[in-house]
């Protein structure tokens, strides 16, 4: 293996170390089945590696990875809408997160915060997570969600208002 290659692989694993948890949280917003979440988290990184190896432009690494993750989740949804017995069996358990009920054992504060996010209307979830949990800029979020930066800011704003209302926190 050449030096460059092993360097690239090291970088790739570092990327996983840094962003693995973030991708996992992001996917959990939309999928309830834990196995499926792990599966897609891993696939996000193998796809990312393929992308890098093919020499395609990476640009903003973090934004690219979230974009891949999001696309995989959407694909998974689509796959669910087949009625072949085969697919149905394989996809069993891929319930959209609307039916998400955190198991009672997950009492940790972090889980509570994530569950609260997952209960928000879909358009706010990802924007809020990326902004406040992962600390991305609205511009980056816009490229991940395929929206304008403006639209993202609006979503973040409304999302926070919604949360405030639910948390009974007075608007400052």
């Amino acid at each position, binding site marked *: 293996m050449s030096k460059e290659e092993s360097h690239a692989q090291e970088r790739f*694993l570092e990327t996983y170390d840094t962003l693995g948890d973030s991708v996992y949280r992001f996917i959990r917003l939309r999928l309830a089945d834990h196995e499926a979440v792990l599966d897609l988290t891993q696939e996000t*990184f*193998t796809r990312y*590696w393929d992308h890098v190896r093919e020499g395609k432009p990476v640009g903003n690494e973090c934004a690219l990875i979230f974009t891949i993750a999001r696309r995989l989740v959407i694909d998974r949804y689509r796959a669910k809408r087949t009625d072949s017995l085969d697919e149905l069996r394989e996809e069993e358990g891929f319930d959209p997160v609307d039916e998400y009920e955190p198991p009672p054992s997950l009492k940790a504060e*972090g889980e509570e*915060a994530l569950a609260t996010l997952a209960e928000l209307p879909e358009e706010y979830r990802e924007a809020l*997570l990326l902004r406040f949990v992962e600390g991305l800029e609205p511009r980056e979020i816009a490229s991940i969600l395929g929206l304008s930066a403006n639209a993202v800011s609006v979503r973040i704003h409304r999302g926070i208002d919604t949360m405030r209302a*639910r948390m009974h926190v007075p608007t400052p």
Partner: protein
Amino acid sequence: MTNPHLNPEEFLKRAKGVGIPAHEKARMRSTLSEYAGHTGEAVRVGEPERLISRSSRLVPSPYYRYPFTLLKPMPIAIAAIIVVVLGGGTSYAAQGSLPGDILYPVKVHVNEPVEETFAFSTNARAQVEANIAADRLDEAAKLAAQGRLSTTTATELTAEFESHAHQAHVSVAALAEENPRAALAVDSALTARINENKTALNALVTEGKNVSVITNFLSSIAVQDQGVTTTGGATITGSDTGSAEGVLQGNMREEDSGNTHSPSASSSSVGIHANSNSDVKVATSSVTGGVHVGTSSGLHLNLDGE
């Protein structure tokens, strides 16, 4: 919501505490490392990605035709009775059982055949077989850790491992034609689990536990392994890399010979032809049920785009 004094932004930040469960994270990391190490050599930056599946490099087990070697017909009947009498929960309880446990026959003769039956797609089939193969190694490692690995059990587990690994390889080869990425993922995951167990077993040897049985177990896998090298088998490669080596095969030898990454172009008796537009063809030879079938199938895989 519990804390009315907390502002929403602060509250959300707590979600940072959620991450991939530790053991899953480590496992995923080793799978990814395997995946990257593998494609990393086969693919060149800027070229369309390409990979050829390795196929049946493992010697098929002589027990291949007799999948029920681990236990004879009598225990199979007992397994069925246990499930009928105790109900479905048994099958769940059996999942973690080890050879010698009462519920082990249920696991091997009820749970696993059911999984196999319901694995409809090639992908599911490959995953199920790979998982079962790796489960046999897990069991060997667990038994060894408890000092319960007998020579007989070790032999049976080796046979079962070989048999399922062979089936996994056949499925992976088929899968590689329809979905090379998925095939590689299954293969990487299996390799990662094999390596995990080899590491665990080697650690036990170092500690001086059960040395002879474990050493035999490890080498019986290695012997099978060397047997194949000369009979041929398919491999992968992009262009001129020396990485013409199946992952499974490669890693076993690596560990056994104690040297890391010596891609053995020399050891592979495989025909790889790259024609002018650099598609790669591989002559596969597979061995089934003890009969050597030279299927110059010209396995031809492309991995362009998504």
